[in-house]
């Protein structure tokens, strides 16, 4: 696959604040890439430098292999969907969508058909005669997407376009957005701070924090193999255990997590660890098994008790104390909640080592 967008060492400062600090990442052609991070992490700055709204202080930006660092925004052919949609309030939906066609000689002819085609695709054809103020939030969002798509952009830039929708609509629209992107085969870069959204729609996730890229990977890599504690913490809920490497072989890594308590993790971790090294052990709550009877066999079995319980619908969350460790466990579909003393088990392959001390 070719790179549709490539940021090379892009740095952008606003006064004293470095909003983007040597940001480097590549976006594959036709992929859906998500920039994910907490507010102020630099994800929106990165997106806006791609659109050309900000000129980077350092670094280079390539779109379809062409250096565009100094190309003004209106010559870049990126289609942007803004967080608040930025629909022109004085133009009807039709004119909003058609606006970008005015500046493109090749698309000017049969502009009306182009507008109708994209409107039909997004199911907003009946709205073409209305003004933006007469539309619901979801409808406005579709118009904004239509306006960005009709110009046949080289890359579709989405700046938290779902954050103004209510929870149910948001989940529905993100599925539609992903489907649309895949059908059109268009490259999309999507900015969000919502980790569920990122995991649901991203082919690739670029996690950012404090202006830097901290990890790039597929959703499963980001979720199950976070490279830093920040990533593990930001995405989903995780148990963090302070651990010292007791023994490291190719097959198995033994970790001391407290006096007399040793856990075993599989040896095929990306990171190479040394014996005696202080690390953080990360375990997702759904990978902590809880049972009333002692499991017949297997490693990492601890005795403990349930301290607190939260019913969360499809799962039940238990707050446990086992071998001097505080753990969170999510258990699927238990209609009768467990109580009192229990046993905890953790699969070796689900213990992920983050090479940072706690």
């Amino acid at each position, binding site marked *: 696959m070719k790179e549709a967008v490539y940021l090379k060492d892009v740095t952008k400062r606003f006064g004293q604040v470095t909003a983007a600090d040597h940001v480097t990442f590549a976006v594959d052609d036709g992929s859906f890439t998500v920039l994910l991070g907490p507010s102020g992490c630099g994800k929106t700055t990165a997106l*806006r430098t791609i*659109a*050309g*709204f900000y000129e980077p202080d350092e670094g280079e930006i390539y779109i379809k292999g062409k250096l565009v660092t100094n190309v*003004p*925004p*209106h*010559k*870049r*052919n*990126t*289609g*942007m969907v*803004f*967080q*608040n*949609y*930025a*629909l*022109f*309030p*004085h133009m009807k939906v039709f004119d909003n969508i058609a*606006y*970008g066609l*005015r*500046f*493109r000689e090749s698309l000017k002819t049969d502009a009306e058909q182009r507008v109708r085609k994209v409107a039909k695709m997004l199911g907003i054809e009946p709205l073409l005669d209305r003004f*933006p*103020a007469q539309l619901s*939030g979801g409808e*406005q969002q579709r118009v904004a997407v239509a*306006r*960005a798509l009709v*110009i046949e952009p080289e890359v579709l830039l989405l700046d938290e376009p779902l*954050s*103004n929708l209510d929870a149910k609509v948001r989940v529905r629209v993100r599925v539609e957005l992903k489907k649309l992107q895949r059908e059109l085969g268009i490259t999309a870069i999507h900015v969000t701070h919502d980790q569920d959204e990122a995991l649901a729609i991203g082919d690739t996730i670029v996690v950012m924090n404090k202006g830097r890229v901290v990890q790039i990977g597929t959703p499963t890599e980001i979720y199950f193999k976070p490279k830093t504690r920040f990533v593990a913490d930001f995405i989903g809920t995780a148990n963090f255990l302070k651990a010292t490497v007791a023994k490291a072989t190719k097959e198995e890594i033994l970790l001391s997590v407290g006096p007399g308590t040793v856990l075993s993790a599989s040896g095929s971790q990306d990171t190479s660890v040394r014996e005696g090294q202080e690390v953080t052990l990360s375990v997702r709550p759904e990978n902590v098994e809880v049972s009333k009877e002692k499991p017949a066999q297997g490693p990492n079995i601890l005795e403990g008790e349930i301290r607190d319980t939260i019913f969360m619908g499809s799962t039940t969350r238990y707050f446990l104390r086992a071998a001097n460790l505080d753990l969170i466990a999510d258990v699927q579909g238990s209609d009768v909640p467990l109580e009192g003393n229990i046993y905890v088990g953790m699969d070796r392959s689900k213990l992920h080592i983050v090479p940072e001390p706690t």
Partner: protein
Amino acid sequence: MIAASIEGPSGLSFAYYADFLSRVLLVRSFWNSLGMAAISTASATIVGFLFAYATTRADVPGKKFFRGIVILQLISLPFTVGLSFVMLFGRRGLITYGLLGRPFEIYGWHGLWAVQTLTFFPLAYLVIVGVLKSIDPALEYAARNLGAGDAHTFRDVVLPLSTPGVASAALLVAMNVLGDFGNPLLIAGDFAVIATEAYMQIVGWGNFKMAAVLCNFLFLPVFILFVAQKYWVSRKLYVTVTGAPTQLEVRKPHKLVKWSLFLFCLSTSSIIVLIYASIGLGAFAKTWGVDYSFTTEHLEYVTFQGIPAIKNALIFSLTSGFACALLGVLDAYVIFRKNMPGRQVLDFVSTLPAAVPGFILGIGYILSFNTPPLVLTATAYIIILNNIARDMPTGFQAGMAGIQQIDKSIEEASVNLGAGTFQTLKNVVVPLLKSAFGAGFIYTFIKCMTTVSAVIFLITPEWNLPSPIILGLAGHGYWGQSAALSAVLLTMVVGTLFACKTIGGRRMPLFEM
């Protein structure tokens, strides 16, 4: 006043209207007023727009200075520009006669046009700044993202979105030009406008009836403009459609645009600086136009003759300011928060006086309070009442601005915690509205200190005021005394504003400073 205009010697009569229509000069003054309003409105609105665009969007250097110039014009005596224009460009003007040494006729429609433009562009500026600030920068970025360059972005997005605001500003300027009185008196020369003709009818002929007729002819277009501004244009203002505004910075225009705007603002501001410099200079020059040697005799005149008038002005302005601010805040609270029947009417009545030209209100007051049951003519009360009636909208606007900033849930929180209506008002609303009250007070105070047209028919030798005195002195060619008294009054007003700004600080944004 309408009643007075149709009251003949024997009952109802339209004789005065017939008389009006038969006098060519008076009819011409009506058309002159309208024509002057049209051209001055166009020019003042354009200047106001350029200033607003330069200071909010173009990031020109010296923004604070330009804003200061605009505010100075807003709080200044309404006829400052006219006065100094005569001093600078008149027959014996410092520039035309003194420096260039050639005769130049400033009196007439062209002089008045220039003066009205410089006097009223700050009004347009204030309205347009508000509108430009409310345009979400994301819209401009969206246009550029879709392929529009600078010129297209301006033409397709910024201009149409600011059009309703610009129209609103233009209507406001038109109302003020139509109602302006001091500047035409000083500089219009033979170019008769309704305001000055009405003044002549009263001062020259004692013909109050004809003055009332003239006022009614003027009031009609002003009223139409007022209704248009309030109910038509303000409805068309686009509000941001959705949720959170973007934190995008306004995109800076091309360097050439920026520096052209800067030059324009700088040259306009230079003229205004020149205006105030001439007032200051005039206060110390022996005989303006003839002998520019230094003297303090004009200031001495002010000290002896002007002080009683200034004292009166202070008394009137303090009482009116207090009353307007209090009434304005209460009025705004009732209209905005309580779903009271008739609030639309109250809203209309609360803002209408802003549209009535000052001298019409003044003449109306004489006609109303000249005869029993309430005879107030020649008392201080009539002046204070007049001030309050005229500046109620100022207090009301300040109150409205304050109320809108208080989230309704704050009051609800208070009620929820067990406070009654009165306690909520006392413990929550009143403290939060203090700054609105303060702003209303200061705006009204400043307006009352400098007002001229509304009070010129109401003053007496006992209850005289500085601004009509200044106008009178200028009318008789006493430029020195006139400039000196202006300078003193301006210093007081500017000083008050600065003092309040320092005390009130950030909590009380005056003139969006």
